[in-house]
């Protein structure tokens, strides 16, 4: 059982990390714990750093479409604050219980990515507490800026291994006037052809999801635009997430996503393919399933990582080493010199 450290400010977090580095104590960084079952299970941590005590709203500027918060604040709370001003954080996949820091550290982009972009594009300024306890601010709070090196982009998706995200400035977006989900059924070939038609037509969808037996499309905008396209019928709700023992997220070129979906459908796996984006989430029950999805993704020039699952599914969560591992190691050495942050999680860095 590791000791729990629960800082209530960025300064306290930095202090706790400086002490952990001095003691060479391994630190598990935990936000809301909704995405903690990822990466390779490391050696047991000596300390657990919980970020949820850092939950202040630092600045909300609705007219500037920016929101600065401490990173332990619930992502759902951020969504509520934004909604109160008719705004949203559409790039993020917001789960009940998730923190802003957790969403960013895991690069959890949401289903609106086709139109809204990736969550890494929404982070304007970040403050991280490095492994050795420095508080580093990078980026800038304006909606646009190229001041210095893009450390915010390094922090997003780094799983806390370069530093703990303690504060973030997010770029918000106006909420569309209307939105709705629509579905079309049919064979996979029919659904793929329909997806292609929707993506290249005049509809401008927010999301096009291919699922077993269903093509689901979300439309947003003026009410006149949120109507069932030809061949579609309204859906009562957004499709449920593929759930299983574990979840694999594959990334392939959007041009090859249909080929991946055909394989998955043949293999009888439950999946959700984000058409036009190239992401495919697959419910898996065994290491064999992981290997099957990964071999298909690799054959199509992509990759597949285990993003959720018990330890036995995460012996090899990442697959082949990505290019530039030596640069990643050097970056890690410079931000977390004692290697105390989530050790082993990234395997090669």
């Amino acid at each position, binding site marked *: 059982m590791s000791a729990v450290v629960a800082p209530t400010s960025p300064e306290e977090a930095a202090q706790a990390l400086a002490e952990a580095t001095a003691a060479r104590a391994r630190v598990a960084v935990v936000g809301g714990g909704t995405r903690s079952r990822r990466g390779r299970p490391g050696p047991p941590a000596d300390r657990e750093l919980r970020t949820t005590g850092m939950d202040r709203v630092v600045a909300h*500027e609705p*007219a*500037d*479409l*920016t929101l600065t918060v401490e990173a332990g604040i619930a992502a759902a709370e951020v969504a509520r604050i934004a909604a109160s001003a008719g705004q949203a954080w559409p790039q993020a996949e917001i789960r009940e219980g998730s923190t802003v820091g957790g969403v960013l550290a895991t*690069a959890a*982009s949401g289903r609106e990515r086709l139109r809204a*972009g*990736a969550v*890494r594009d929404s982070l304007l300024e970040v403050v991280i507490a*490095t492994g050795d306890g420095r*508080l*580093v*601010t*990078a980026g*800038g709070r*304006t*909606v*646009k*800026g*190229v*001041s*210095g*090196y*893009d*450390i915010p*982009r*390094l922090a997003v998706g780094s799983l806390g291994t370069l530093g703990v995200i303690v504060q973030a400035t997010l770029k918000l*977006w*106006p909420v569309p*006037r209307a939105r709705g989900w629509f579905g079309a059924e049919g064979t996979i070939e029919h659904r793929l052809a329909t997806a292609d038609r929707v993506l*290249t037509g005049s509809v*401008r969808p927010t999301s096009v999801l291919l699922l077993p037996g269903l093509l689901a499309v979300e439309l947003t*905008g*003026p009410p*006149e*635009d949120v109507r069932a396209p030809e061949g579609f019928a309204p859906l009562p709700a957004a499709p449920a997430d593929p759930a299983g023992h574990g979840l694999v*997220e594959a*990334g392939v*070129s*959007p*041009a090859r996503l249909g080929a991946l979906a055909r394989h998955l459908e043949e293999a009888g796996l439950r999946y959700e393919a984000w058409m036009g984006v*190239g*992401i495919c989430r697959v419910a898996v029950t065994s290491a064999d399933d992981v290997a099957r999805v990964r071999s298909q*993704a690799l054959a199509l*020039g*992509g990759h597949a*990582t285990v993003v959720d699952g018990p330890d036995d599914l995460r012996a090899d969560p*990442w*697959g082949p080493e*990505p*290019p*530039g591992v030596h*640069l990643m190691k*050097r970056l890690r050495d*410079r*931000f977390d010199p004692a290697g105390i942050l989530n050790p082993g999680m*990234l395997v*090669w*860095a």
Partner: protein
Amino acid sequence: MATTQAPATRDRFEALLDPGRVIDHPLERRLYSRDGSIAQGDCGLVVLPETTAEVVACMRLAHELRLPVVPRGSGTGLCGGAVPLDGAIVLSVARMSRILEIDPSVPCARVEPGVLNLDLSTAVAHLGLHYAPDPSSQQACSIGGNVATNAGGPHCLASGVTAQHILGMEIVLADGEVLRLGGTAPDPPGYDLRGFVVGGEGTLGVVTEITVRLSRNPPQVRTMLLDFTTVQAAGEAVGGIIAAGVIPAAMEMMDQRMVAAVEAFVHADLPVEAAAILLVEVDGTPAEVASHTAVVEEVGARTGAGRVRVARDEAERALFWKARKSAFGAVARIAPNYYLHDCVVPRTRLVEILARIYEIGAELDLVIMNVFHAGDGNLHPLIAFDRRDPEQVERVHAAGTLIIEACVAVGGVLSGEHGIGLEKRDFMPLTFNAVDLEAQACAREAFDPEGRMNPAKVLPIGSRCGEIVLDAGSLPPGTWL
């Protein structure tokens, strides 16, 4: 003073490239000692590789000889990022200008870094596609340079700056190692090195191939011109449109001096008597365009816009944009030189900062004109001057500093889209403390441990990562200007 490389060095590079692609003549080298900024550098050999293999060979040789290297695209950059110092080698990618692949099924294009921004959009227009970032220099600037500076443009308001449109790249590191980062498959495992390289200003390596995301042309576009009797009213209109939940595809402001200069240049029947004009473009489905247009018209009426002139057809739309994008050319009629500034303030502070900029102009007796990306608070004060007059140049410098300080004081940042380069390097401590700057130096040093890539740019002299000092190139007196 320009230093000539030892002949032996030239011979070594000539053995790698044809003699015609290694430039050592002092007059020709002089052409490479500047970029689109007002900085004057000191250029050593210029090498013009045509393939990645040739870039690798050049970088390996530079590594062996421990020579600093400055990558260069079209040389249109405005912050001195491509200006060589101390006789550094300039590696120009201008001859790497092929579009290698266009894949409408992604849609994306794979290009060499010397491909010009507008040429790419022109090449994919028949597919109903375009490359979204559109700097005003898009006829001349290269995609490689856009990647180096994380370039913006009017249409980045809704669609995002360069970083959001770069899917992958091939980069040659300082020691000649080649890496392929990112690609059409999203979110590869590990740190986002691809995203970090964008905006790296040539200090992380030489980008030799780029995969860019292409965007589908919107079904409908409407471009509107609004004129106002005060700059304040124009600023209120900008805020009002955003507050109504509309992010236009582009929202550009021009003040009276700028409008007058542009009108004399392009004859677009612009309202030269207006204190400020707004160019607002909305796009999307017909319903979106109708709904956004209604908001623009309503806000315009509420904030006192004289009238909303809608571009009647594609020709008039093109004319409006020509007026906007030839603003800098138009200034040549007013003064021989101009200094184009770039900074960002929170959108809500636009009016106040413009007032301060006019004050600064009056205090220093300088003509300052404004044409800028109002929608995202990205200002471009333009100071007309004559560089032959040293005293005037002094005042231009002073004005630049005052403008930066004023922007930072209201919560702004040093640059919106031009970059830091040489121009703003020494202002970095205004927005970052020593710990922040050290972290940036360390991230840079991870890519280039010897600090030979575009030295002395971005970070202030003396920036260090631990014990390593990253200022291999010194700034000769009078280099900046």
